[in-house]
């Protein structure tokens, strides 16, 4: 779908609390264009709840349950059950949560909701850290990245949350970036068309947290795809399908750009370049990424995910 054909309807009001250049706000606008007005959100503690604004006003034109950090998927379960009881199963029940509320604090409720086959869409906008509390490491923070709690660079790898979700046997999951809004739009619409638990994870390059200029949010998200640091794919009927540039990287039609090109634009990786290049860590990050792609290729080849 071309940009021109995306709905005009705006369901987030201007003047929200989001930082300038916020990837979550951007992705949320596109997501709501896909979802439309017949939607109810559950949002845990995260940047998006700050964007909402404070009582008695909200920037969202759809109902939102603001809920505790760990509880968004549990709230969504209740909403889905209640709406079913009222015969309103056509209403989209959606969680919009950060990676802290997904990978770490909300994992238990999410796992339970998916296991119960709750009819909802769980969307994680993944800025790879606890941004609004002041940039602490999360389970999604990549290896080598600076945060205020990993100030010499994170020494552990991020967890593979999408794989954890797939292990639940859910009917649909997808990844997206703000830089490809038509792709995100299509995936949200796809998720809406399927009954059961759906998971979408959106990479959210955060200018203040990742330390890059705020006009580069879209560019950074595309660079993540071009360098293979982020893979765009869908998972349906037990199969992985790659999209856009990630498809040609998977099929070896395009070489991913060196991952360095992505890292060096982010202040959170500056210590890997100055005062001296940390060849060891840079190489580890590159090799790990290439290994991830090899694994993806094998998964596609063997039809396992």
């Amino acid at each position, binding site marked *: 779908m071309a*940009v*021109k054909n*995306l709905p*005009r309807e*705006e369901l*987030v*009001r*201007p*003047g*929200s*609390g*989001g*930082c*300038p*250049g*916020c*990837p979550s*706000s*951007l992705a949320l*606008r*596109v997501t709501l264009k896909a979802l439309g007005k017949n939607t109810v959100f559950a949002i845990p503690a995260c940047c998006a709840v700050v964007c*909402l*604004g*404070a*009582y*008695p*006003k*909200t*920037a*969202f*034109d759809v109902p939102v349950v603001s809920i505790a950090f760990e509880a968004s998927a549990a709230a969504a379960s209740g909403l889905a059950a209640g709406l079913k009881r009222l015969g309103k199963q056509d209403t989209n029940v959606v969680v919009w949560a950060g990676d802290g509320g997904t990978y770490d604090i909300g994992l238990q409720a999410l796992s339970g909701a998916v296991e119960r086959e709750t009819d909802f869409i769980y969307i994680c906008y993944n800025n790879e850290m606890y941004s609004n509390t002041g940039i602490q490491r999360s389970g999604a923070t990549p290896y080598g990245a600076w945060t205020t709690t990993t100030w010499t660079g994170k020494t552990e790898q991020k967890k593979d949350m999408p794989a954890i979700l797939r292990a639940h046997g859910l009917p649909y999951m997808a990844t997206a970036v*703000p830089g490809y*809004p038509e792709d995100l739009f299509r995936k949200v619409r796809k998720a809406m068309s399927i009954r059961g638990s759906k998971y979408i994870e959106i990479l959210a390059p955060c*200018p203040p947290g990742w330390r890059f*200029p*705020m*006009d*580069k*949010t*879209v*560019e950074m998200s595309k660079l993540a795809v071009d360098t293979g640091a982020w893979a765009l794919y869908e998972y349906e009927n037990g199969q992985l399908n790659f999209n856009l540039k990630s498809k040609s990287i998977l099929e070896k039609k395009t070489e991913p750009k060196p991952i360095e090109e992505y890292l060096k634009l982010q202040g959170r990786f500056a210590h890997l370049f100055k005062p001296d290049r940390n060849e060891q860590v840079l190489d580890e990050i590159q090799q790990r990424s290439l290994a991830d792609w090899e694994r993806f290729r094998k998964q596609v080849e063997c039809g396992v995910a």
Partner: protein
Amino acid sequence: MKMQVKAVISRPADGVMGKTGAWRDFRPELDSSKCIKCLLCWIFCPDGCIKRADDDSVSIDYVYCKGCGICANECPKQAITMKREGMGE
């Protein structure tokens, strides 16, 4: 006994954080003569501050535009440029 249900409910409004245009250091300025109506600025503005008219021409909502510069960065025709706020004409 009749149970009372009480919840704190906020209502939708523009400018929940005030007139966020005041956050701007740089202001996007549009040269409509260069615009090809591709709508990339419209879809990429995180704050919905690029207004899309019926004929798909665009304009900027300076009351709430936060001055991030994404629109200028993404415009394929360089129709939007960022100008320092308050530095004369």
